[in-house]
C-alpha cells in the first residue's frame, strides 16, 4: 500500500487532514460518483469531491493522518489509479494569471455593454431629437466608465508593451496599447474641448474585450514547461555508507563520494557511484540503464552504475567514477543541454509578431502624415484615420489563428486521455519524418504475464503462487497475478538471486532459476524467454513461461506509420534476440539492442543531423535523455514522473493508438492554422487600403476586426470534424 502521509495537509483549526490526488481512468460522471460515494461510506470522511475537468480528487477526513493511505487504497481498489498531486509554484502563478485575465475580460465586457447602451442612443440621434445637453451627458458617462476600465483591463497589454519597449523591441501589444491610449486621449481631449466631434470610447472598450478573449486563449495554449533534468538530479540526493581501511563505517552524502572509496550497499539501497563489485552476490534493478525490470545478477568483478538499485543482498563496491563523472551525471548533462536547445524553438506566432508590428506602426504613421500633410484635413481627423488603421490591423485574428486551434486540440485530446504539455507539441509533431520507439513498456505493455497457464495444473499454479506471493520479483508477481484463490500458508526461504524454497507435505519445494533447481535432464527448451521452474521433491520440474506482450495495436500503428512514409526505429536496452523478434514481427527494419541511455540520445541526434524531424516514444528512465533530445516526444502514463516530465505528450491506456491519434490531430491543426493565417492575411489585404483611404471609422474598425477574429475561431471549430474524418478513412 502506498504511503502518502508526506503529502497530507493538516488543518490545525479543525484537526482534519486533506489529500489532493490525480486520478486516471475517469470517463464520465458515474466514475466520479462511484469514487465520491465510496469515500463518503467511510465514517471519518468530511468532504470528498472530484474535479472532473482536471481529473483531480480532493478529500478531507478527521482522525489519523495514516487513515489517508487506506482511503486512497479504497479509490485504487475501485479501479482508478490515484497518485498524490503536488501543485508547484509554476502552476499556481499560471492559475492566478488566467484568473486575472478573466476578471479583466469581465470588466471590459461590463463596460462594453453599458457604453454601447449610451452610444446606440447617440447614433440613433439622426434627426437631432436628442438635445445637445443629453448627448454631452451620455458622452461624459461613457468617459467615466471607459477610463477606469481602460486602466484596469488594459494592464495586460500595457505591461507587456512596456516590457518589450524597455528592451528596445516591439511586440504585438505595442500597437494595441498605442491604439487604446491614443483613441482614449483623443476622445477625452475632444470631450473637454467641446468640439462636438464623435468620440470613440465604445471602440476602445470593445477592442479590449475581444483582445482579452484572444489573450486568454493564448495563455491556455502556452502550457507550462517542466525541467526533467532537475528531477533526475534530485534522484541522486542522499547518503551512502563507506567502509574505511580500518573496517569502520561512515555515512557521507552522495556528493562526497570519491574514487577508490569502498561503498557498502545494503539490500534495497540505491548505488551512489559507478564501480566494481569487490564482495557480495546480488541482483540489481538496472531499469535506469536498460529499461528492463528483470533483475540482473551481479557478483564479484562486475561493473555497476550509479542510479541502479540493489535488490537482494549486501554488496561492497569499489568506486571507479563518482559524482560528476558517473554515467548518471552524463545523462543529466545530456538532458540539460537538450532542454536548452529546445528552449530555442521559436513559436510560429512569435516569428510572425516580429515582422508584423514594425509594418503596422509604419503604416499608421504614414497614414497620419498622408492625411495631415498631403490631404490637409487637420490633426484631429488625421489622428482618427491613423487610429482606425491601428485598430483594424490589430493582430487579433493573427494572435488567435494559432492558439485557438491548439486549445481546441488540447481539449479534445485531453478527453481521450492524451495530455499535451503545450500547444507547441502539436506544431512540432506535424513535421515528423522519423519515429524512434523504445521496446519495453512502449511497444509492449511492460508487464510480464504467465503465458503457459493452460499447460500447468491448477494445483501447481496454486503452489507456485503461494511461494511467490511474498516476493517482489517481477516474475513472482506475474505468477501471483495469474492465480485467484486461496493460498497455502507456507514458510518460505528466499535465496537471493536464485529462488524461493519451502517444505510442503514433506517434500522439498523450489521455485526459481533453471540452474538452481536440481535438474538432471536438460531437454527443456531455452528460448531466452523469462522463465521460472517449480520442482516438487524429486519429480520432473515444471516450467513457467512469461512474456511481455506487445500492445494490441502496435502492429497496426507501425504499419500505418510506414504507409505514411514515416521511418521507424527501435532503441532498446534489452537483449538482441528479444528485440530482433519484435522488430521482425512489427516490420521495423532498424533496431538496436542493449543500448545505453546516452547512446539512445546519440542515435537521435545523429538522425536529426541528417535533417530528419524526430519523434521519440519511450517510457523508461533510460529514455529520458532521448525524449529530451528528440524534436518531439511522447510517453505512456505508466512511465515514471521523471520520464513523463521529459516528454511533450503523455497518453493513458494500454493501446498504442494515441500516438496515431495525436499525430493526425497535429496534421489537422497544422492545416487549420495555415488556413487561419491565410484568412487573417486576406482580411488585412482588404482592410489596410480601406483604412488608409479613410473609409473606416474607429468603431467600424473595431467591429470589422472582431468579426475577423470570430471567423478565425469558427474555422478552428472544424477541428473535431476533420480529425474524425481522417481517422475513419
Amino acid at each position: 500500500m502506498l504511503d502518502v502521509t508526506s503529502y497530507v495537509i493538516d488543518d490545525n483549526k479543525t484537526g482534519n487532514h486533506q489529500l489532493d490526488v490525480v486520478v486516471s481512468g475517469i470517463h464520465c460522471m458515474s466514475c466520479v460518483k462511484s469514487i465520491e460515494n465510496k469515500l463518503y461510506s467511510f465514517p471519518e470522511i468530511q468532504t470528498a469531491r472530484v474535479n472532473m475537468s482536471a481529473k483531480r480528487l480532493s478529500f478531507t477526513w478527521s482522525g489519523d493522518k495514516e487513515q489517508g493511505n487506506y482511503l486512497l487504497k479504497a479509490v485504487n481498489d475501485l479501479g482508478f489509479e490515484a497518485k498524490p498531486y503536488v501543485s508547484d509554484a509554476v502552476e499556481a502563478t499560471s492559475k492566478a494569471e488566467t484568473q486575472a485575465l478573466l476578471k479583466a475580460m469581465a470588466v471590459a465586457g461590463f463596460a462594453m455593454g453599458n457604453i454601447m447602451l449610451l452610444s446606440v442612443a447617440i447614433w440613433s440621434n439622426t434627426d437631432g431629437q436628442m438635445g445637445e445637453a443629453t448627448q454631452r451627458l451620455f458622452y461624459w458617462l461613457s468617459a467615466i466608465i471607459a477610463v477606469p476600465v481602460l486602466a484596469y483591463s488594459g494592464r495586460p497589454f500595457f505591461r507587456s508593451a512596456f516590457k518589450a519597449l524597455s528592451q528596445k523591441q516591439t511586440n504585438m501589444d505595442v500597437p494595441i496599447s498605442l491604439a487604446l491610449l491614443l483613441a482614449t486621449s483623443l476622445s477625452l481631449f475632444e470631450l473637454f474641448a467641446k468640439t462636438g466631434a464623435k468620440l470613440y470610447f465604445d471602440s476602445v472598450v470593445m477592442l479590449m474585450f475581444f483582445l482579452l478573449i484572444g489573450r486568454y486563449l493564448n495563455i491556455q495554449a502556452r502550457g507550462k514547461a517542466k525541467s526533467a533534468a532537475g528531477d533526475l538530479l534530485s534522484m541522486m540526493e542522499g547518503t551512502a555508507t563507506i567502509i574505511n581501511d580500518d573496517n569502520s563505517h561512515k555515512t557521507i552524502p552522495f556528493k562526497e563520494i570519491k574514487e577508490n572509496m569502498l561503498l557498502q550497499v545494503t539490500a534495497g539501497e540505491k548505488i551512489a557511484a559507478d564501480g566494481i563489485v569487490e564482495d557480495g552476490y546480488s541482483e540489481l534493478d538496472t531499469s535506469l540503464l536498460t529499461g528492463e525490470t528483470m533483475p540482473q545478477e551481479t557478483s564479484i568483478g562486475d561493473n555497476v552504475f550509479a542510479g541502479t538499485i540493489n535488490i537482494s543482498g549486501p554488496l561492497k563496491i569499489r568506486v571507479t567514477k563518482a559524482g560528476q563523472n558517473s554515467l548518471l551525471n552524463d545523462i543529466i548533462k545530456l538532458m540539460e543541454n537538450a532542454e536548452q536547445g529546445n528552449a530555442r524553438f521559436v513559436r510560429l506566432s512569435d516569428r510572425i509578431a516580429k515582422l508584423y508590428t514594425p509594418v503596422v506602426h509604419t503604416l499608421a504613421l504614414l497614414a497620419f502624415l498622408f492625411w495631415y500633410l498631403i490631404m490637409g484635413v487637420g490633426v484631429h481627423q488625421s489622428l482618427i484615420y491613423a487610429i482606425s488603421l491601428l485598430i483594424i490591423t490589430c493582430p487579433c485574428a493573427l494572435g488567435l489563428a494559432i492558439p485557438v486551434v491548439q486549445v481546441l486540440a488540447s481539449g479534445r485530446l485531453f478527453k481521450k486521455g492524451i495530455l499535451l504539455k503545450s500547444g507547441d507539441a502539436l506544431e512540432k509533431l506535424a513535421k515528423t519524418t522519423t519515429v524512434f520507439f523504445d521496446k519495453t513498456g512502449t511497444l509492449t505493455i511492460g508487464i510480464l504475464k504467465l503465458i503457459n497457464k493452460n499447460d500447468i495444473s491448477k494445483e501447481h499454479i496454486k503452489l507456485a503462487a503461494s511461494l511467490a506471493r511474498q516476493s517482489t520479483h517481477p516474475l513472482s508477481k506475474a505468477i501471483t497475478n495469474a492465480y485467484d484463490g486461496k493460498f497455502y500458508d507456507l514458510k518460505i526461504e528466499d535465496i537471493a538471486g536464485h529462488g524461493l524454497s519451502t517444505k510442503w507435505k514433506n517434500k522439498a519445494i523450489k521455485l526459481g532459476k533453471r540452474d538452481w533447481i536440481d535438474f538432471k535432464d536438460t531437454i527443456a527448451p531455452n528460448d531466452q524467454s523469462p522463465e521460472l521452474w517449480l520442482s516438487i521433491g524429486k519429480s520432473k520440474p515444471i516450467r513457467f513461461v512469461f512474456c511481455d506482450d506487445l500492445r494490441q495495436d502496435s502492429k497496426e500503428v507501425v504499419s500505418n506509420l510506414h504507409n505514411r512514409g514515416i521511418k521507424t526505429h527501435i532503441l532498446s536496452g534489452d537483449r538482441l534476440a528479444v528485440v530482433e523478434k519484435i522488430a521482425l514481427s512489427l516490420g521495423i527494419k532498424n533496431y538496436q539492442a542493449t543500448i545505453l541511455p546516452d547512446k539512445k540520445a546519440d542515435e537521435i541526434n545523429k538522425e536529426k543531423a541528417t535533417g530528419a524531424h524526430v519523434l521519440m516514444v519511450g517510457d523508461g528512465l533510460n529514455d529520458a535523455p532521448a525524449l529530451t533530445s528528440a524534436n518531439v516526444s511522447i510517453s505512456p502514463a505508466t512511465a515514471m514522473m521523471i520520464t513523463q516530465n521529459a516528454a511533450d505528450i503523455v497518453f493513458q491506456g494500454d493501446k498504442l493508438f494515441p500516438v496515431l491519434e495525436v499525430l493526425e490531430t497535429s496534421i489537422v491543426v497544422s492545416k487549420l492554422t495555415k488556413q487561419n493565417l491565410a484568412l487573417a492575411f486576406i482580411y488585412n489585404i482588404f482592410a489596410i487600403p480601406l483604412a488608409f483611404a479613410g473609409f473606416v471609422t474607429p468603431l467600424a474598425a473595431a467591429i470589422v476586426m472582431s468579426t475577423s477574429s470570430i471567423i478565425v475561431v469558427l474555422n478552428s471549430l472544424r477541428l473535431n470534424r476533420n480529425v474524425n474524418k481522417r481517422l475513419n478513412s
Partner: protein
Amino acid sequence: MIALLYLIPITLFLGLMGLVAFFWSMNNGQYDDMEGAATRILYDDEDDNEDNKK
C-alpha cells in the same frame, strides 16, 4: 428626460451588481470544474452526502 436621471444610474448599478456577482463566483471556485458541474445536476444524492457529514 427626467426619467433618464434615475434610469441611467439604475442601469449602471444593475450592471455593476452583475460584475460583482461574477467576481464572487470566480473567487468561489465555481469555474474550476465546468464539466463536473454540468453533469452533477443529474444526480439526486448530492444532498445526501452533504447532509450526512455536516
